[in-house]
C-alpha cells in the first residue's frame, strides 16, 4: 500500500483468484464428471431427475445480483448463520469477513463457469478413449491424468479462465462477505470501485489498466501455450 495504492489489493486478488480457481477445479471436476457421465451407468429415471435438478442448482447462484447473493451468504456465514456458527465451533474464528469466507463465496458464485465447460468436455469425450486406456492397463487415476485431462484440455482451460477472470472481476459478493478490509479482503476490484466512487478517476484508470494489462498477459500466455501444446 506504500508505493502504490493497488499493490496490496492486486496481490490479494491474485491469491484469491488462484485459490478460488484451484478450489473450484477440485470441487467442480467431480461434479461435472457426475453430471456428464455419472448417470449413464445407473440408468434409473430417478437419477436423471436428480441430475437435472443439480444442473439447475449449479447455475442458480448466477441469477441473483452478486450483492444480494453476498447478503444471503453473509447471513449464512454470520454469527447467527448455521454455517457461521458451525465454523466458529470448528475453528473459533468467524467465517464472515475472513479470507476463507471470501474464497467460499467466490467459489459458490463462480461454480457454474467451471462446472459447465468441464461437464461439456467430459460429455463430448465419451467413454471410448477411457475404455482404450483401461484395456491398456491404465487405472482410473492414470486414465484421468493421461487421457481425460489432455483430452478435455480445452474444457479445463475455459473453466480456469472463466473462473479466474470472473473471480478477479467479481466484487459484489466479495464486498458483502469480505467487508473491504485492507490486506485481508480488499481485493483489487473493490479498490478500483472505491477509486471510481471517490472520483479519483486518474488512479482508477491506472489501476484498471494494470489489471487489464496483467490479465491480458496471463490470458495471452495461457492461450498461446495451449495452441503450442495442441500443435505438438
Amino acid at each position: 500500500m506504500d508505493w502504490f495504492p493497488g499493490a496490496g489489493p492486486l496481490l490479494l486478488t491474485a491469491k484469491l483468484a488462484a485459490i478460488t480457481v484451484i478450489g473450484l477445479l477440485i470441487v467442480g471436476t467431480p461434479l461435472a464428471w457426475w453430471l456428464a457421465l455419472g448417470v449413464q451407468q445407473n440408468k434409473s429415471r430417478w437419477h436423471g431427475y436428480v441430475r437435472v435438478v443439480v444442473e439447475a442448482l449449479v447455475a442458480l447462484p448466477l441469477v441473483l445480483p452478486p450483492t444480494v447473493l453476498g447478503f444471503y451468504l453473509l447471513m449464512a456465514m454470520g454469527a447467527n448463520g448455521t454455517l457461521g456458527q458451525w465454523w466458529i465451533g470448528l475453528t473459533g474464528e468467524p467465517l464472515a469477513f475472513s479470507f476463507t469466507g471470501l474464497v467460499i463465496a467466490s467459489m459458490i458464485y463462480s461454480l457454474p463457469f467451471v462446472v459447465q465447460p468441464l461437464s461439456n468436455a467430459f460429455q463430448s469425450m465419451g467413454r471410448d478413449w477411457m475404455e482404450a486406456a483401461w484395456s491398456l492397463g491404465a487405472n482410473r487415476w492414470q486414465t484421468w491424468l493421461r487421457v481425460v485431462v489432455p483430452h478435455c484440455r480445452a474444457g479445463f482451460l475455459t473453466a480456469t479462465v472463466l473462473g479466474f477472470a470472473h473471480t478477479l472481476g467479481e466484487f459484489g459478493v466479495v464486498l458483502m462477505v469480505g467487508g473491504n478490509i485492507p490486506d485481508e479482503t480488499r481485493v483489487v476490484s473493490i479498490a478500483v470501485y472505491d477509486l471510481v466512487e471517490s472520483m479519483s478517476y486518474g488512479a482508477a484508470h491506472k489501476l484498471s489498466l494494470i489489471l487489464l494489462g496483467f490479465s491480458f498477459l496471463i490470458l495471452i500466455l495461457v492461450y498461446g501455450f495451449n495452441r503450442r501444446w495442441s500443435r505438438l
Partner: protein
Amino acid sequence: KNGAGTSSHKQGNHEGLPLRVAVASNFSPTAHKIVTSFEAGTNAKVSISSASSGKLYAQIKQGAPFDVFLSADAIRPDLLVKEGYAVAASNRVYAHGRLVFWVPGVSGNESTCRQLLYSGQLTRVAMANPDVAPYGYATRQTLTALGLKNPVFTLIFGENIGQTFAFIHAGGVAAGFIAASQWQLSNRSGCAWEVGTQYHAPIAQRAVLLNRASNNALARRFLDFLHSSKTQAKIKASGYLLGDQ
C-alpha cells in the same frame, strides 16, 4: 459542452412524462415517502432512481435523464454546479445526516453503548467506507475525536451506509456506525448511541436542479416541496437534522 442540456430530447416537463429524481441510496426510503405525498398533492408522476451519489454524479455528467439530484453529500452537487450541469441557485441542503452507533445484540443505554467501543468486547465494527461515503467520512472523524484512530477492533467497510447496515443486519458484524434514518427504520433492538454533531463535520446532503430541467416547473415545485417545512418535518422524523442551518 453542456451535455445534459443539449442532448436532452425531452426537455422540460411535457404532459405524461414523469419527473425523474436521482436519489442517493441512503435517502431513498425517505424520498419515497416524500414523493408519495408530492404526487398526491400534484397529480404528477415522479420516478426515483437510486444509486450511490458517485454513480449518479458520473451518470448525470454522461447525460442521464434526471431532473433533480438528491445527493448524500455536498461535494457532488457543488461540482455539478461548477461544471455547468446543474442550476446554481437550486443548490440547497435538504437534510443533514446523523450517525448512530448501534450494537443490536446488547441492551443498555447510550453511554454503556458508547463504552462498548473502548471495552475490547467488540472485535469488529462496521462503518461506511470513509473514502467513498459521507457517513463513512463522518464516522472516521468521530472515531478520531473519540481517540479511536487505531482501534482494537477491526473496521469493516461497507460500500455505503446501506451496506454497512446490511452487515449488521445479516449478523456478520456485532456493531457499527449507521445512519439515524436507518436506525429509525429498523426495529431498534439492542443499544444505540446517537453520535452528536460535535464529533464530526455536518453530513450535509444537498439537492440540485439539473440543467435539463431548468425550465421544468414541476421540478422546481418538487424542490420547493422538498424544502417546505411540512416535508422538512417529515425528514426530521425520519432521522435527519433539518436542512439549511
